[in-house]
């Protein structure tokens, strides 16, 4: 396990895991922020209450992801982050705005709540757009040109809509009454963004690189991989049907949109991972070329194997403690 072939692979897996967890977990709380303009103040309080105990830990997965990139693939992280300098800065400023607005909106003098709500929304929007943009640029091989920027912009919008979809699905799960009804409406709109985004990425990725095209469309892969798009399609159809019937009288199936959205994200993620493997900087650096020294990776792995299960354990504990419908946040 501690050899120079396996270690980079394991760390690529860990990197993937933390990006995936980040996108799913911070995805829903960013999405909640994106939905602010469509809600009134009381609804916003409730929506914030539904993510209050979680958002900080959710964001920590981003810190872990960037940390793994930094420590396990030192040569790649410079290439990727300097190429994405500006979108990274936009994302960071977005994260700052929403992270602090979260606290300030509750603690500032009453009259100041509105500007902080605005900061929360705009921070969430900046973050979502910047992340989508970076995803698009990454798919385009980190090259800046009109065409790649146009594609990245499309991805930016698509990811923002996708986040608001999973955010709406979270609100359906965590609230009831009028707000829940409203959230079903949001989700009905958002699902089209998800279809558009996943479609655009699926079409563009193979077109950009012959290697990726080949990986998907040669025989027998085209058959073994077929379940991936088919399952995604089926799931979208099911989600669409479910959203027409929700909310149900006894609140059954309120979990379905959220779980469906998560599964959709997981499927999309595996598709992407399959396309790019074994590269970490698309078409330039493989995970083995970019990896740090074996001794250093080994010492991190030992810690990871001990600590990661604990982290997952107490993360689950937090979700169990705060299960059920969201109530007003209070410190005692």
């Amino acid at each position: 396990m501690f050899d120079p072939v396996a270690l980079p692979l394991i760390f690529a897996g860990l990197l993937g895991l933390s990006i995936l967890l980040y996108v799913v977990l911070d995805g829903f709380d960013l999405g909640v922020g994106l939905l602010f303009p469509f809600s009134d103040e009381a609804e916003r309080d409730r929506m914030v209450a539904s993510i209050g105990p979680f958002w900080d830990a959710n964001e920590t997965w981003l810190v872990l992801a960037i940390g793994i990139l930094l420590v396990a693939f030192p040569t790649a992280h410079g290439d990727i982050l300097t190429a994405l300098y500006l979108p990274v800065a936009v994302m960071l400023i977005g994260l700052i705005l929403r992270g602090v607005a979260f606290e300030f909106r509750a603690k500032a003098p009453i009259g100041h709540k509105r500007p902080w709500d605005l900061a929360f929304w705009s921070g969430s929007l900046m973050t979502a757009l910047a992340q989508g943009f970076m995803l698009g640029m990454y798919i385009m091989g980190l090259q800046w040109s009109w065409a790649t920027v146009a594609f990245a912009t499309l991805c930016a919008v698509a990811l923002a809509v996708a986040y608001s979809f999973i955010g709406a699905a979270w609100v359906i799960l965590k609230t009831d009454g009028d707000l829940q009804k409203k959230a079903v409406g949001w989700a009905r709109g958002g699902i089209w963004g998800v279809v558009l985004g996943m479609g655009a990425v699926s079409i563009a990725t193979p077109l950009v690189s012959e290697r990726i095209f080949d990986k998907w469309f040669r025989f027998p892969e085209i058959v073994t991989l077929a379940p991936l798009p088919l399952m995604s399609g089926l799931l979208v159809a099911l989600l669409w049907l479910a959203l027409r019937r929700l909310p149900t009288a006894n609140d059954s199936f309120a979990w379905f949109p959220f779980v469906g959205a998560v599964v959709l994200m997981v499927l999309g993620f595996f598709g992407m991972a399959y396309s790019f493997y074994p590269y970490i900087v698309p078409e330039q650096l493989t995970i083995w070329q970019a990896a740090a020294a074996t001794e250093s990776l080994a010492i991190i792995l030992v810690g990871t194997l001990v600590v990661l299960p604990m982290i997952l354990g107490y993360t689950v504990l937090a979700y169990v403690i705060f299960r059920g419908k969201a109530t007003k946040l209070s410190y005692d």
Partner: protein
Amino acid sequence: MDTLLLSRIQFAANISFHILFPTITIALGWALLFFKVRFNRTRDRKWMDLYLFWVKVFALSFALGVVSGITMSFQFGTNWPGFMETVGNVAGPLLAYEIMTAFFLEAVFLGIMLFGASKVPGWLHTLATFLVAFGTTMSAFWILVLNSWMHTPAGHELRDGVVYATDWWAIIFNPSMPYRLAHMLLASGLTVAFLIAGLSAWRWLRGDREPEVATGLRFGVILGALLIPVQILAGDMHGLNTLEHQPQKVAAMEGNWETGGNVPLLLFALPDEAARVNHYEIGIPSLASIILKHDPAGEVPGLNDFVAEDGTVMHPPVAPVFWSFRIMVGIGMLMLVASWAGAWMMWRRGADNLPRPYLWGLTGMTFAGWGATLAGWYTTEIGRQPWLVQGVLTVEEAVGDIAGGMVLTTLLAYVAIYLALLAAYIAVLFHLARKGGRIAAPLAAPVIQPAE
């Protein structure tokens, strides 16, 4: 403009903003645990009220610490790619352990600590409070291991210009780590002591006579009085350690140009690097030699020893190091006077009978800890120049190849946001103090405290 200079300013601005909030949360976490345990023991409502007031400050500070910390982690990649490429094999595992053993612990249990009191049993809530305090201290530990290693590298070898770890024990317990860690943790304690004392004094001055105000005042002043002598001792030992490993830094701190004995302790001077002399010196004869060597004739290194044959200067810029050191020590002395005078007066006439000018003084010192901490870090970090990792990697070698204009844009954006947030933070702290710790309610009934 110059990418290197702008990247340095940007990094310094970011880290200076970041450090303000961990400095508060590291010690405030333990203070909250103390309040909570006192309440569990005594069932005296005032401890709960103290807890409920300061937990809000904690939550707010924590949020600011997290978001600015995330910015920090990205800076390594966006602005200093050479750092990880050269020393990543050492820095990487240390950062990874910080994220895994500290950040997740804090972040998850913070949710339970803040919002879980009514959802989990009392012991679990106290445990969550403990784990959050423990987590913040762990992050300080790991990041200071890394920072100390950058000042006094050990346990590694260089192969083809890349650092490889050879001895993790030596890396973690590198020569300056124990001093830096102790000094920083004490700094955090002092920052919180004066923050609590300062805001409590201000509430008292405004006529707020809730029982927790006097208790907070007493807590802050006594904590400050206990910690400051230890801090001065730790600072002195830290300086002796620096003398051993980074003599050029100590030479800059003392503003001493020529190596020799009987070096005075300068109280004031304007170091002039062009002429390589000080103007308008006021000093106490031989005291620097006595402090650093315990001997009036003791030899103190001078800056002129750190100029290469060809005239290349290998010591840090003198004036900023000289002055930030004096600001830190000056604030430390002020803290000594303020906390001991306060403790003495409280002992003589109780916490609810302090003279108004003294209370105004404490209010003025609410953020004194921030001042000293920033000044201390400036001494340390500027004193390391031109090195990023002493003797291994210079700052110039680590900087990324990005357009200067781009760095300038992001720098201006960060600074604008940071200034606005700092103003908002301080305003909200005083707003919370004005509202007082609790919503008026009968003492016996359980009070539901909203998060605002």
